[in-house]
């Protein structure tokens, strides 16, 4: 795992709750808002299960800690998106909170119904970008969620030991987290 320069992290009173909201104007319309919210809730829950930080969706976008939206090409933050595939998304280090997804991608929450060869799993990318929001940079471990690349039609949503160790060094350990359950799940995903 790696951190951003200066190892920034969110600093708030304990127990820490970070709020998140979706942009009213910068969304995709072929996945329902309900479904998008469900996917992000799962993605946030994965990180919340390993650190003593919780995430709460709020209505007010401007005042939310984490602000999520889909954008085309140059969208004003100096990091323009590039059309289909290429760059999929980006997010900013703590405590900025912006999480941007490329509106040109074919986002999917279910590869059974979305047959495009270019389809990109929304939950995998959301989980990765939330890692950046929390302060993790890219990992060189291919299996880690924080590895920078993701092939179309692939799913990578389970945090690996590298991800967990990195984020726990920033925020501490969720009292309900057990290393054995993580190792067990890593083992089963590796086919034992």
């Amino acid at each position, binding site marked *: 795992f*790696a*951190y*951003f*320069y*200066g190892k*920034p992290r969110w600093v708030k009173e304990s127990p820490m709750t970070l709020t998140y909201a979706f942009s009213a104007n910068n969304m995709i319309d072929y996945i329902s808002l309900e479904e998008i919210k469900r996917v992000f809730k799962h993605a946030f829950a994965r990180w919340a299960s390993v650190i003593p930080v919780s995430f709460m969706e709020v209505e007010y976008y401007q005042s939310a800690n984490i602000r999520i939206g889909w954008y*085309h090409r140059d969208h004003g933050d*100096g*990091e323009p*998106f*590039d*059309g*289909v*595939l*290429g*760059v*999929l*998304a*980006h*997010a*900013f*280090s*703590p*405590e*900025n*909170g912006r999480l941007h997804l490329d*509106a*040109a*991608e*074919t986002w999917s929450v279910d590869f059974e119904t979305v047959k*495009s*060869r*270019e389809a*990109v799993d929304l939950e995998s*990318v959301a989980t*990765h*970008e939330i890692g*950046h929001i929390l302060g993790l*940079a*890219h990992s*060189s*471990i*291919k299996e880690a969620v924080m*590895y*920078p*690349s*993701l*092939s*179309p039609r*692939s799913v990578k949503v389970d945090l690996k030991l590298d991800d967990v160790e990195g984020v726990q060094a920033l925020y501490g350990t969720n009292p309900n987290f057990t290393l054995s359950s993580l190792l067990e799940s890593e083992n089963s995903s590796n086919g034992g």
Partner: protein
Amino acid sequence: RFIPDSITGITTDTHNVTDAHNVTWHDFGRFLDVGRGSEVSGMSELKKYLCRFGYLPSTNNFTDVFDKELESAVRAYQSSLGLSVTGKLDSDTISTIMSPRCGLRDTAHNTTDKLHVTRH
């Protein structure tokens, strides 16, 4: 001709007709096994890619020559991405470069990275 599995078949835009494909990265397959000292048209685009993700310093004058700086950048990229560090554009390296990815730079400790801003 080298075509990585992850990119195979990406030829039609099925979702949004206003967005062209990211043809630049798709074209990097032709650099497979190109070595230091070679000059290949379009190599400057690969240098721009490596610059964008933090492996080469920014300049307005990238050449099409596979020079010493590019070799060092390829080595750094391979190290960052968990690939065999060869300094060569082998198939694993080209395949990884062509894969869709997060837009954040890989060199986390670059103080000039625009995305390393904090709110004050």
